[in-house]
C-alpha cells in the first residue's frame, strides 16, 4: 500500500474499506462492568465474605463488654469498644491458681517452636534431598512408610511414644518434644522437599559431582542456596502446626514449659458461670497472631514455594 499509484487505483474500493476503517481500531475496549467481570469479582467477593466472617466475629466480639454480648447479635459492631478482654486474656485470665493469662505460655511456645521448626526442617530437607538425588536401595520403601505415617492419627501414637521417650530418657524434656514434632512433621515435609529437589535440574547435581562435591557439599553449597521458596513453605507449615499444637505440648512436657495453647484451652474451657466470650475470642486471636503474621508477611513466597514443592510429583 506504500505505492501512491496503487492507492489511487483502488479508490473505487476505498469506500468499502473506509466503512471497514470506521470499524474496530486500536486496542479492544475493556468494559469494567462486563458480565464476566461481574461474575468473576462477584464470586470472589462472596467467597471472601465467607472466609472473613469468622475473623470479623472474633474481632468484634473481643472488643465488646459482656453485657453487650448477652444482648445478642454476634455480627453487630461494638457500641462501646473495650480492650479489657484483650488485657484480661493476655495478663490476668485464670487457669486454676495461675492468673497471668496467656503471657505465661508465650515464651514457652517460642522456646518450643523455634528448635522444633529448625530441627524438623533440617531433617526433612536432608531426607528430601537424599530421596530425590541419591536414591539408595530401599529408600523408596522408607518413603512409602513415611507417607503412610502421615495418615496415622496422633492419638494412636501417644502411648508408644511415651514408652520410647521414657526408654531413651527424654520424656518430659524439651528435647523430647522437639523430637516428637520433628517426627510428625517429617512425612509431609519430606514429600514437599523431595518434590522440590527433584524439580531442580538434575544436571546441576551431576555437574557438582563431577566437580568433586560430596553428599553434604552438594546439599550445603548447591541445593540449599536454591531452596528459599520451599523453605518458606516448610517454615510456615511447621510454625503453624507446632504453634497450634496442644496435644503433644501438654502430654510431652511439664507445666513450667506448657505452650500457649494449653493456656488457651484452660481459658476457653474453664468457664466461670457464664462463658466470657469476649475474653475467649481475644485469647484466640492473640494465640493465632504469630502464625497469622507469618502468613501475611510471606504470602507471595508461599505460593511460589508451594508451586515448587507440589507441582512436580
Amino acid at each position, binding site marked *: 500500500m506504500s505505492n501512491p499509484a496503487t492507492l489511487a487505483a483502488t479508490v473505487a474500493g476505498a469506500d468499502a474499506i473506509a466503512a471497514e476503517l470506521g470499524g474496530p481500531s486500536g486496542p479492544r475496549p475493556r468494559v469494567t462492568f462486563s458480565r464476566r467481570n461481574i461474575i*468473576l*469479582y462477584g*464470586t*470472589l467477593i462472596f*467467597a471472601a465474605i465467607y*472466609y472473613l466472617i*469468622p475473623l470479623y466475629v*472474633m474481632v468484634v466480639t473481643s472488643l465488646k463488654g459482656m453485657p453487650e454480648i448477652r444482648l445478642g*447479635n*454476634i*455480627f453487630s459492631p461494638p457500641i462501646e469498644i473495650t480492650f479489657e478482654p484483650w488485657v484480661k486474656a493476655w495478663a490476668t485470665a485464670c487457669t486454676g491458681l495461675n492468673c497471668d493469662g496467656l503471657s505465661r505460655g508465650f515464651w514457652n511456645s517460642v522456646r518450643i517452636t523455634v528448635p522444633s521448626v529448625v530441627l524438623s526442617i533440617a*531433617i526433612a530437607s536432608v*531426607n528430601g534431598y537424599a530421596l530425590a538425588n*541419591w536414591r539408595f*536401595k530401599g*529408600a*523408596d520403601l*522408607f*518413603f*512409602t*512408610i513415611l507417607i*503412610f*505415617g*502421615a*495418615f496415622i*492419627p*496422633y*492419638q*494412636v*501414637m*501417644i502411648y*508408644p511414644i511415651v514408652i520410647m521417650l521414657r526408654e531413651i530418657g527424654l520424656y518430659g524434656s524439651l528435647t523430647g518434644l522437639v523430637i516428637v514434632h520433628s*517426627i510428625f512433621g*517429617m512425612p*509431609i515435609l519430606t*514429600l514437599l522437599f523431595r*518434590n522440590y529437589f527433584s524439580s531442580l535440574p538434575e544436571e546441576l547435581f551431576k555437574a557438582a559431582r563431577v566437580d568433586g562435591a560430596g*553428599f553434604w557439599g552438594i546439599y550445603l553449597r548447591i541445593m540449599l542456596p536454591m531452596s528459599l521458596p520451599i523453605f518458606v513453605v516448610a517454615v510456615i507449615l511447621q510454625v503453624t502446626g507446632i504453634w*497450634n499444637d*496442644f496435644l503433644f505440648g501438654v502430654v510431652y512436657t511439664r507445666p513450667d514449659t506448657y505452650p500457649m*495453647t494449653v493456656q*488457651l484451652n484452660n481459658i*476457653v474451657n474453664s468457664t466461670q458461670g457464664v462463658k466470657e*466470650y469476649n475474653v*475467649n475470642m481475644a485469647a*484466640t486471636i492473640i494465640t493465632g497472631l504469630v*502464625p*497469622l503474621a507469618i*502468613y*501475611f508477611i510471606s*504470602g*507471595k513466597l*508461599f*505460593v511460589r514455594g*508451594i*508451586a*515448587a514443592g*507440589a*507441582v512436580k*510429583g
Partner: protein
Amino acid sequence: MSAATRPSKLFKNLNAKIASIPMILTALCVFVGGTTWTVVYSFTDSKLLPRLRFVGIEQYERLWASQRWIVSIENLAIYGILSLVFSLVIGFLLAALLDQKIRFEDTFRTIFLYPFALSFIVTGLVWQWILNPQFGVQGIVRGLGWESFSFDPLYNADIVIYGIMIAGLWQGTGLVMCLMLAGLRGIDEDIWKAARVDGIPMWKTYLFIVIPMMRPVFITTLVIIASGIVKLYDLVVAQTGGGPGNASEVPAKYVYEFMFRAQNLGQGFAASTMMLLTVAIIVVPWAYLEFGRRR
C-alpha cells in the same frame, strides 16, 4: 589392569544413608514399630496400662458391635468423601478465578488462606458460635423477621456432620487453593494460546487439558487433605464434642476416648488398628506405585 576392590554395597552412598538415619529410624521405630505395637496390643484386654494378656479378637467383636463405632465410620466416610470433593472443587475454582489476571489478587489470596493459620480448636470454637441457633446465624435471620428460618446444623443430629464440614472447609480450602494456584501457574502459557486459537471454551480447557496436566499437584493435595481427614478429631471436639448424642463421632475420637476416658486401651487399639488397616490398604499400594516405581 587389575580391578579395584569393589566397595561394599552397604558403604555405597554412605553419606546419603547416614543422613537418612533419622528418616529410617522414624519410619521403622515410630511408624512401623508403633503400628506393630498397637496391633499386638489390640489383641489384649489392656485397660489403663498396656498388658500382654491376649484375648483373641474379642476387642474387635465388641468394636463392630458398637453402635458408636458404626456411626463414627459412617461419619468419617461422609465427611471424608464430601470434604475431599469440596476441597478440591472449591480450591480449584478459587484458584482458577484468581488466575484470571485479576486485580487485588494478593488480597484475595491472603483472605482465603489465613484460616489455615488457625488451629482446629479455634476454628471449631468460632464456628460453634456462628452456628449457634440462639445468637448465631439462625438467631439473626429470625431477628430480621424470618421467624421460621432454621439453620442449626450443630444441634441437629441428621446434619451435624455437614456443620463440621463447613468449618473444616473454611480452614482447609485456602491451602488447597494455594496448591492449585501453584499448579496453574506451572502450566505452559502456550496451552492457553493453543486452546484460544482452537476456540475451545475455557471450562473445557480446564477440564480436559489443564486438570490432567496438574496430576502431580492433585496427588500432593490429595495426600495432604486425606491425611488430615483421617486424623479429624480436634475440630469435632471443639465444635460439638461428638454431639448431639453421638451423631458427630469420628474414629479418631473413639480411639482417644476408649484409650483414655474409658481406660480400655485394648479397645482403643483395636479401633486404631481398623483405621490403620484401612489407610494401609489404600495408601501403601498407591504410594508404592506413585513414588516407588518412579524412574
